[in-house]
């Protein structure tokens, strides 16, 4: 066991941090979030130049072959910078779902993603109301149904989604602008965008996958670990902003960071952050675990801790900022909102507690 970064990892981490510091300051971020697409295509191009977009793809497929630790590093930095770029969808979920398909379209798409030419999102919600039907006629698959709350669904070039074929679940790939696809995008609470997508006899390509459900679960697990790391980055930033505020804000003739009651609340934030950080590591350690039961248990435990820490750190950050923390003008509120939405993503607290309870606990 060691927690040291390799030289490559350290370099990646540093370069990304610098890149984000240069291109993703809070004011830029705010301006971007006010209209579609909601992220910065320029920054995305920089991601491509940095090799970030090739990171999670297999070396055999022309990628860099990064593992969960690399994803964790990247997502943490994105979390720190409140990045809204669709990395999670395009470079964490999609690579797993595309991984078993060696066909021409997919190979081309992989290339496009790695070079920053294509954004690919995934409709991976587990709610049954969202299940799309797929019918095969004349060698063509056609999709009919609705997918709601698809992140960047209105803006992505490509969309991957599970659909029911009548003979079980399969994965499909479809272009965003395809005939029969209606996309209605809208803003979300955290300054990002989502969409409701309606399919009506829309021609789609079935992805090769020996076990579509299993592959989807693996993709979700990888994404869950990734979003835990994003949350840790956001929490780190919350803590830093709060400490900076405590160090500078004057009330009652002194900086408020001298008040012991506030110091202790900040100390509680440190503790919650350390616990969350540990469980983000735990998620990364376990998200590629072959034993699905062990994997899901570990990931649920991680999300439980992340959610609890996110809630307490987010709330404390606002409380310690006082009124100014309630305004859209300061970054801290945006972090709080993003953390709240991360809590709800890939299963909320109840979902993961239920999963652990059904398994009889973490150590069962």
């Amino acid at each position, binding site marked *: 066991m060691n927690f040291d970064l390799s030289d490559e990892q350290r370099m990646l981490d540093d370069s990304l941090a610098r890149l984000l510091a240069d291109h993703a300051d809070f004011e830029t971020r705010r301006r971007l979030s006010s209209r579609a697409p909601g992220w910065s295509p320029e920054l995305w191009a920089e991601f491509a130049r940095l090799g970030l977009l090739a990171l999670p793809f297999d070396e055999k497929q022309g990628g860099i072959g990064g593992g969960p630790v690399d994803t964790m590093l990247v997502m943490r930095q994105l979390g720190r910078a409140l990045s809204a770029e669709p990395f999670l969808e395009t470079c964490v979920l999609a690579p797993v779902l595309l991984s078993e398909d060696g066909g021409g379209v997919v190979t081309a798409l992989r290339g496009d993603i790695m070079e920053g030419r294509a954004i690919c999102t995934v409709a991976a919600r587990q709610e049954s109301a969202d299940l799309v039907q797929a019918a095969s006629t004349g060698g063509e698959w056609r999709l009919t149904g609705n997918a709601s*709350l698809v992140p960047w669904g209105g803006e992505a070039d490509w969309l991957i989604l599970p659909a029911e074929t009548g003979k079980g679940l399969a994965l499909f790939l479809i272009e965003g602008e395809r005939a029969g696809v209606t996309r209605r995008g809208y803003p979300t609470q955290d300054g990002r965008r989502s969409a*409701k997508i309606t399919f009506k006899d829309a021609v789609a390509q079935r992805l090769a996958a020996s076990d579509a459900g299993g592959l989807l679960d693996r993709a979700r697990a990888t994404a869950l670990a990734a979003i835990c790391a994003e949350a840790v980055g956001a929490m780190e930033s919350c803590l830093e902003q709060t400490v900076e505020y405590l160090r500078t804000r004057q009330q009652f003739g002194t900086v408020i960071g001298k008040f012991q009651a506030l110091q202790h609340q900040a100390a509680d934030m440190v503790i919650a952050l350390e616990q969350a950080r540990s469980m983000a590591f735990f998620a990364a350690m376990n998200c590629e675990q072959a034993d699905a039961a062990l994997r899901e248990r570990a990931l649920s435990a991680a999300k439980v801790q992340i959610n609890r820490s996110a809630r307490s750190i987010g*709330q404390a950050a606002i409380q310690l900022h006082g009124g100014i923390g309630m305004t859209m003008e300061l970054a801290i509120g945006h972090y709080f*909102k993003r953390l709240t*939405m991360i809590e709800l993503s890939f299963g909320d607290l109840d979902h993961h507690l239920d999963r652990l309870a059904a398994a009889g606990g973490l150590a069962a």
Partner: protein
Amino acid sequence: MDLSFTREEEAFRQNVRCFIQDNLPEATRRHMESFRSPTRDMIVAWSRILHARGWGAPRWPAEYGGPGWGPIQQYIFIEECQAAPAPDLLSFGVNMVGPVIYTFGSAEQKARYLPRISSMEDWWCQGFSEPGAGSDLASLKTRAVRNDDGWVIDGQKTWTTYGQYANMIFVLARTKPAAKKQEGISFFLIDMKTPGITLRPIQTIDGGCEVNEVFFDNVRIPGDALVGQEGKGWDYAKFLLGNERVGIARIGISKGRMRLIRDAASTCIRDGRPLIEHARFLDRFIGLEVELKALELTALRLLAAEASRGNSGTPDPASSVLKIKGAEIQQRTSELMLDIAGTAALPWPQGDEAIRALAPGPSWADAAPSLYFNLRKVSIYGGATEVQKNIIAKLILGL
């Protein structure tokens, strides 16, 4: 000691309830039940309905146009309104500046302002906080300099709720710059249309623009804008804030919200069963019900003590308990709602019904995170939780 409501009190409650049922506009009730803030028009219309009934200023003595109710009746009235749920009367008028005017104001100020407050002809807002004076209100910097026929105000206020609707503002300003912090502060009543006053809305994280910055640039006001004595503004402000602390616990609102949460959780199906039947949710719901019941009785005990000893004018430091716990409970109700909404809370339609229709979940789902974000304020404003704990430690425990 009689720990139940008297027959008269129960009859009073019934009377109030019937009036609200018969007179609260249905659209307002429905709007409030979907966990949204009332609009300006809803507040004005409802205030005027109450005023027509003689209930426009429920806490005021009869001589100033109030119904002359005791604290228990006032409590019942407010609880019934909040549970309806009806919009609150505009606190800045009836609960804040009104009592200051009838307690410390001149005969002329009383005659001019009080009727217009209870009839909601004037919309008042508050000019207390400043960018550098939040919890530490006494460090405020806005200046009022005497000139021939009045005062000239310069400075900046912030967190002025509903400033955009207001035609009047009450302001704390420093009239003796050299005096010690709490001294040399005076209390003014100012017409918002006076030249030199400008407003800048502040968008808060729930997406709303309830609060504003108010700038005073060489604002000339008449001499009779001063309330009471020059330099006594700090005392009047303390009186005002103490008055508000029982109401600020928002117990009736929390009770009404708990009822709506029960309804929502009864219709929200998770894993084939209504959410309200899930053990974890029910435990949290019950835990909150118990805390809220306890808080309600704590408030009643405080009111009863006040009723039997008479209002001393200075707030009971125990009201800090109400403020802290009331804030905590309000925040926890919004967390329950967020949990009911689940991922349906993600979209941010900002009032666009077409977008709302695209999202899964109940029609109020987007209101849940907004409320959750918005209610972070309740442990910050009106004396932050930390300040209230200081008060308890100092004034109740003598530490």
